[in-house]
């Protein structure tokens, strides 16, 4: 489903969670600042494979309260309001239960430096720990440590 370019703030996510067979969701170019899925537990979006939520207003806390998407393979978080990524939260998000099948996350952080806006690109891939593979990050244009 493509809902790009509308005026959604994130509260509407709970309605989309009602759709049982949703596999692709494009929420880019909206006004989303958080995921409001209270009341759905971990069963919401349990078939979602690709989520585009780039160009919204999601802040640094996104990884602390990130919903569990059990089938999510690709996540696009570019061009949001994040200016740093906590290493621990991020690794937990990638490797533990919340995104067990994630293969690709796209990030572009905006960081204020010397009063000017600079962009950093990073693309992450993770292997599936359920298959006994180590969780690590590949194809990184910048190391996680830099964040």
């Amino acid at each position, binding site marked *: 489903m*493509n*809902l790009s370019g*509308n005026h*959604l703030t994130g509260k*509407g996510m709970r*309605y989309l969670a009602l*759709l049982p067979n949703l596999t692709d969701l494009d929420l880019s170019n909206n006004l989303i600042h958080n995921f409001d899925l209270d009341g*759905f537990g971990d*069963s919401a979006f349990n078939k979602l494979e690709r989520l585009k939520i780039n160009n919204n207003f999601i802040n640094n806390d996104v990884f602390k309260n990130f919903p569990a998407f059990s089938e999510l393979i690709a996540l696009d978080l570019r061009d949001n309001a994040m200016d740093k990524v906590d290493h621990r939260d991020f690794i937990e998000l990638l490797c533990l239960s919340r995104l067990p099948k994630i293969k690709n996350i796209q990030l572009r952080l905006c960081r204020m430096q010397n009063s000017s806006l600079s962009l950093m690109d990073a693309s992450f891939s993770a292997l599936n720990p359920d298959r006994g593979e180590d969780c690590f990050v590949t194809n990184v244009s910048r190391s996680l440590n830099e964040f």
Partner: protein
Amino acid sequence: MISVVFFMKLLLFFCMFFSSESIPYKIFLSRFFHRNASFVSKNRLIFACNLKNREISEEMFIDIFQNTSCQFTKKLDISWSTISDGLLLSLPKTIEELSLARVKIRFSGNIVSIQNYIKPLLARLPNLRVLDLSFHGLENSDIDFSNFFNRSLGSKIEVFILKNNHLDIQAIANFAHFPELRSLDLSDNSMVSLAEFDFQGLLRDFYFPKLESLSLRNSGMNAIVADNEEYSAFLLSLKKLDLSDNGIRDAVLGSIFETHCSEVFRASGFEFKRQSPYR
């Protein structure tokens, strides 16, 4: 850049001319070769023909569709081109995919609208499966097929593209005459609100039994109200729904997907375990 493009087209020409393959699948007739297509070997069958953005003359038409194996073409793109009405209604009956986006029709020296040629084309092309009529300013009455098709003579069209016309939500009823319809693109029209359409009297399984993809992008649909189960079923049965660029707010999503979701899922055999937090 131009020389590179020319070189590629030249390479394509020689590849096709000297190729040992008997059935090339596709041919693109660029402006460099638009003079005629007689270079195509007689023993080759051309299934796809691209004639975009050009003036299609009678000589060129005869060259392509009568003197060469293009007469068996199944896929034709003449979007943004200019063609006479006589030639338009002489297209090969073998065509299955036809793009007429922004095509200009010449009649007695004047450019006329495509409105009056849609039904004759559908009658002429019985095998048509994909039709693109975008950018024509079509209104609902222009695609009213109520007196054209009947149950024994239904359209085979599976993909109907009507981007950037002047259709409103009532036009959806017209597509009930396309029982094979799988994909419908109504983006950049003036749908305004699905609430204005009465789905109560429609049986979805009869009218849109195979519809999988619906695009309503940039159609001003910012006040949708789902007030009956037929409507919810119609939307939720889709595999692909594009509602982008409509100014939709969170509450509108609720009105679309919450009102009858649980009932629809139960009716379709889905085991609905989650409850809306708003119930």
